[in-house]
């Protein structure tokens, strides 16, 4: 499906058009910039940047804050980079700076969280909603279509809200026998998650499954379940592929985790930017003049379910270098 | 120099201390003998406290040396001073309000076992021992300091200082908040300490005390050493003239010549601590309130002014009944109250002199939205001159004024609104003789000009010298009224004493 980077390297070494300059700077801009999740994206972006001999730089806003992200993005735009890969804390709030960048001739592509009304060339995402749906389907099958489940999420953070909503809607549609009886807010913190999930297990002793929309929620859920002596009796579906989650899958405490195609977002996003910048994609002549989008506007980067069977394949996905 | 060094405990040589804008001490040299009570006198801002702070290690001199028992010592911190056997009661109280009396007395020296666990039983015992010296005042080792009044806090400070095993005890205006009875107890303690061979450096603006206690008197003026006199060989007038640099007599202004109509009247004031108080005040007179500490004078004044809640009672100004439900109401009627506790309740220590002087004026007289800086400064100028406040600029923080000058700023704050009735609670606390005379004259002037003056004072000479009429209080009640010739110490004490 995906060409290995070795294939592409051969192609580029053969073709000078695929060689950029080391002064060419491409930026990846995110919100909550410290977290593990973006590392997979950056790893993919960097792989592509190395391939083309250009520079990939990762920066972002430390918090989930629209003002912070817009400020950082605008500051990046002020540096006139070769291209920007951005994920949007809020779709509408980022429209203006994205449009501005494009007006200035800086190609912008969104990933993971889109700004659909903006003029970005393309978006690469799974859709957080779809990822939640996938978790619902896996858990639904695991529970045989019936029982009580709970959700641990980060309230009011858009990507988490979407994962939650996808999960709930899908259960309702496809597994009507499964009831979501509790939703808690773990604020992306393992200690809080453990505390909230413990209380949830007390309030609903019949809970058979828990879906965590963030990895640290999964770690907290695992601990809460251990402390309540319910390992095996409560299934956990977590999110992402940090080592803690993978270890817990290996141990059989977490049953599965949803992995999004983060590497692909970064790799193809970077590739799109490079191709745009270097005028390589030309589906129609003078597309700029006629306002025709030369790129596929939407790329589904896929979702994977990490389980005990395939967990070993994921240990290196977020490790850069 | 002159005296033999065997008998000498402390020698100061060329002590100089300069603050921004002020030379607080310049080349001060003198000696204190062993087992003597050595008084330091001087006007407000003469540098007395600064000098004491230097000896006790809380200030470092810019120049000069200190010799203790003939050896040069280097005092860099309060701890150094303590280790050398120097202990001090600061002019400004420095207690820990959240802690108990006992813990404050033994601050930094709590009795403890080998595991450093405090022996509270012993602590209370030890504290009780010192406190029982002051049994009049009724302080328990376990009382929280925040709940004590100023006099009681002053006693705690004194108790703290005398529990140190010291060679030199410094007392910086220890009696300014004390009643005569408590002061008498203190004097006895001081004399006992002297008998044990301890030297005492004693600062006070009450010359009577000085002449009762002191062996020698050192006079400071404008930060300079003037002279040291043997108490037996001098007299108050000479000391005052040395302090002030000119002749003045410690004399009260003549009493009222004519007393006019009634201008202020309260009837049946009742509160939690004041019972059935009625009195009236007439134009031109100064009405005094006397009583022991805790007799309820402060409570009464604060109840009248609406600062403390009133259960019942009526107040009349110029014959008309007025409603006072809050202090603001009182101020609107131009009734002012000068508090006895300048640090806690009287001043904005971290703000400049000018801001303090204008505080009430701005809120109650100056109806404009924006403050005219020149107006504010000229107001400060007017009262700084009138009360002779020693300050390097109107923007100097009140915190850095000498104690007496702080007191003057507090009075200025009230004079600035031209009050109709002014209640002054211990107004001359910590004020030097010269300034005191000035304030006394000022109060008399104000009374003459028709302003009603109510003077609460624990200093009987002041009450006797100033007031045309005196009301004596005991346990929240007025126990008697004295006027004219009847105003004597014996009569007041008789009405004030516990029955």
């Amino acid at each position: 499906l995906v060409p290995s980077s070795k294939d592409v390297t051969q192609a580029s070494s053969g073709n000078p058009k695929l060689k950029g300059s080391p002064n060419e700077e491409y930026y990846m801009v995110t919100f909550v910039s410290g977290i593990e999740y973006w590392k997979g994206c950056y790893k993919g972006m960097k792989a592509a940047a190395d391939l083309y001999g250009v520079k990939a730089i990762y920066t972002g806003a430390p918090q989930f804050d629209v003002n912070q992200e817009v400020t950082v993005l605008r500051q990046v735009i002020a540096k006139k980079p070769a291209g920007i890969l951005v994920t949007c804390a809020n779709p509408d709030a980022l429209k203006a700076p994205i449009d501005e960048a494009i007006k200035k001739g800086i190609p912008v592509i969104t990933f993971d969280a889109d700004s659909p009304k903006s003029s970005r060339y393309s978006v690469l995402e799974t859709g957080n909603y779809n990822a939640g749906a996938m978790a619902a389907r896996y858990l639904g099958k695991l529970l045989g279509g019936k029982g009580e489940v709970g959700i641990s999420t980060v309230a009011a953070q858009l990507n988490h809200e979407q994962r939650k909503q996808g999960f709930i809607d899908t259960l309702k549609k496809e597994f009507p026998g499964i009831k979501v009886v509790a939703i808690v807010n773990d604020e992306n913190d393992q200690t809080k998650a453990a505390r909230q999930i413990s209380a949830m297990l007390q309030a609903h002793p019949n809970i058979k499954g828990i879906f965590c929309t963030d990895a640290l929620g999964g770690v907290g859920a695992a601990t809460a379940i251990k402390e309540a002596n319910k390992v095996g009796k409560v299934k956990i579906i977590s999110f992402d592929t940090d080592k803690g989650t993978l270890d817990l899958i290996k141990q059989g405490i977490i049953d599965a985790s949803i992995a999004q195609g983060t590497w692909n977002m970064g790799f193809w996003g970077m590739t799109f930017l490079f191709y745009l910048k270097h005028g390589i994609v030309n589906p129609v002549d003078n597309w700029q003049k006629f306002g025709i989008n030369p790129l596929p506007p939407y790329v589904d980067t896929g979702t994977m379910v990490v389980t005990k069977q395939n967990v070993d394949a994921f240990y290196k996905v977020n490790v850069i270098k | 120099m002159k005296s033999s060094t065997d008998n000498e405990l402390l020698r100061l040589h060329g002590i100089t201390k300069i603050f921004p804008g002020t030379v607080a001490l310049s080349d001060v040299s003198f000696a204190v003998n062993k087992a003597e009570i050595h008084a330091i006198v001087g006007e407000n801002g003469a540098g007395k406290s600064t000098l004491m702070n230097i000896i006790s290690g809380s200030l470092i001199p810019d120049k000069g040396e200190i010799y203790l028992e003939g050896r040069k010592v280097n005092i860099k911190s309060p701890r150094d001073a303590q280790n050398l056997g120097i202990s001090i009661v600061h002019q400004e109280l420095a207690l820990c309000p959240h802690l108990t009396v006992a813990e404050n007395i033994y601050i930094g020296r709590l009795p403890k076992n080998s595991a450093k666990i405090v022996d509270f039983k012993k602590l209370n015992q030890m504290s009780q021992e010192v406190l029982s010296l002051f049994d009049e005042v009724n302080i328990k080792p376990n009382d929280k300091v925040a709940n004590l009044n100023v006099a009681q806090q002053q006693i705690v400070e004194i108790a703290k200082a005398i529990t140190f095993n010291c060679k030199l005890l410094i007392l910086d205006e220890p009696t300014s908040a004390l009643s005569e009875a408590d002061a008498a107890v203190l004097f006895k303690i001081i004399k006992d300490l002297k008998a044990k061979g301890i030297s005492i450096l004693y600062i006070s603006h009450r010359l009577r005390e000085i002449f009762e206690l002191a062996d020698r008197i050192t006079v400071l003026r404008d930060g300079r050493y003037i002279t040291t006199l043997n108490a037996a060989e001098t007299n108050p007038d000479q000391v005052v003239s040395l302090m002030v640099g000119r002749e003045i007599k410690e004399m009260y202004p003549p009493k009222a010549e004519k007393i006019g109509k009634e201008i202020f009247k309260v009837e049946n004031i009742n509160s939690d601590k004041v019972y059935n108080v009625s009195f009236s005040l007439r134009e031109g007179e100064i009405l005094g309130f006397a009583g022991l500490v805790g007799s309820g004078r402060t409570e009464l004044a604060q109840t009248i002014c609406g600062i403390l809640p009133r259960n019942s009672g009526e107040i009349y100004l110029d014959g008309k009944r007025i409603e006072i439900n809050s202090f603001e109401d009182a101020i609107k009627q131009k009734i002012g109250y000068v508090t006895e506790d300048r640090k806690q309740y009287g001043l904005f220590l971290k703000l400049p002199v000018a801001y303090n002087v204008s505080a009430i004026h701005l809120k109650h007289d100056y109806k404009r939205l924006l403050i005219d800086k020149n107006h504010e400064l000229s107001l400060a100028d007017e009262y700084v001159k009138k009360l002779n406040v020693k300050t390097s600029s109107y923007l100097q923080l009140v915190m850095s004024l000498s104690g007496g000058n702080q007191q003057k700023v507090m009075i200025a704050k009230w004079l600035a609104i031209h009050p109709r009735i002014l209640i002054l609670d211990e107004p001359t606390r910590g004020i030097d003789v010269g300034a005191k005379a000035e304030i006394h004259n000022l109060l008399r002037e104000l009374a003459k000009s028709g302003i009603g003056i109510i003077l609460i004072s624990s200093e009987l000479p002041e009450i006797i010298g100033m007031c045309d009429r005196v009301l004596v209080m005991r346990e929240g009640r007025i126990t008697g009224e004295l006027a004219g010739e009847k105003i004597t110490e014996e009569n007041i004490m008789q009405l004030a004493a516990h029955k």
Partner: protein
Amino acid sequence: MSNTISNASANKSLLKKLMGFREITLIFIIIVISVIISILSPNFLTAENLITTALGLAADGILAIGMTIVLVSGGVDLSVGSVLGLSAVIAGGLYLSYGVNIWIGSLIALVICALIGLFNGYFIARIGIPPLIVTLAMMGIARGAAYVLTQGSPLSLYGNLKGFDFLGQGKIAGIPFFIVFFVILIILFDFLMRKSAPMRLVYYVGSNENAAKLSGINVPKVKISVYVLMSVLAGIAGIFTLSRFSVAAPTAGNGSELNAISACVIGGASLAGGEGTVLGAILGTILVGIINNALVLLNVSVYWQNLVSGVILIAAVTIDYLTHQKKS
């Protein structure tokens, strides 16, 4: 002493007068850091970057103005960030769900903010609960109200409101109106804090509450006004944020309280009350803002950003304190 107090202040040269300003070192530090950044990154001193950075600061800066007043009064307000968010959510929500005119909606939002301030002030000044707890509870309540009203999802006004957009997106002579408004607020409040009689009362209250009471100042009234003013300013910041992004996120302003408080304290305010100036608070905001900007401009790794900005902050403040140190 030769009491020649009078003209002491008049004699001061302009330089000395300037040096006396608590804020002058902070200005120097900001200039020095700016020079260093602009040497390292030519992008720093571009109009675009400066305007962007200023825009990013404006909302926090408005909070810092209010927080100065709160700190001077001897209090603190942790609820400002969530009040900002709630204000945006109310104005946006009324418009979207009930078709209320956005200007009227904004006004209603500000009234609700004022009520929040009244509530804070009442519990602090009349009941006597520590400001930290009252406003911490209010932080939860206001944030919670924003969550409840939006059910966790941001409200979007996109593309609807030309006139209202001007607040956050319009420009006057090329300069964003939000910045113009922000600068006017700074000048206004700096002036008022220095010159106006009501604001002086705030200094009195914060400097010594007891003395203020015994000077006939209605201390509870002053305090309540301070919290109302703070909440209204937070509400205004929320309305501008709504207009700027056309989005009312229930999480908007999260953590802003700490930014605002630290900006004020860097600028010389004290948690003990009685001290602080608007100018200082704004300089504190700017210092933090340019440090953050530098991290982006100099491509500091996201993992290093917290560490580097912490180190720069402590270094800057230490220099400021060492040059201002009065007593040993």
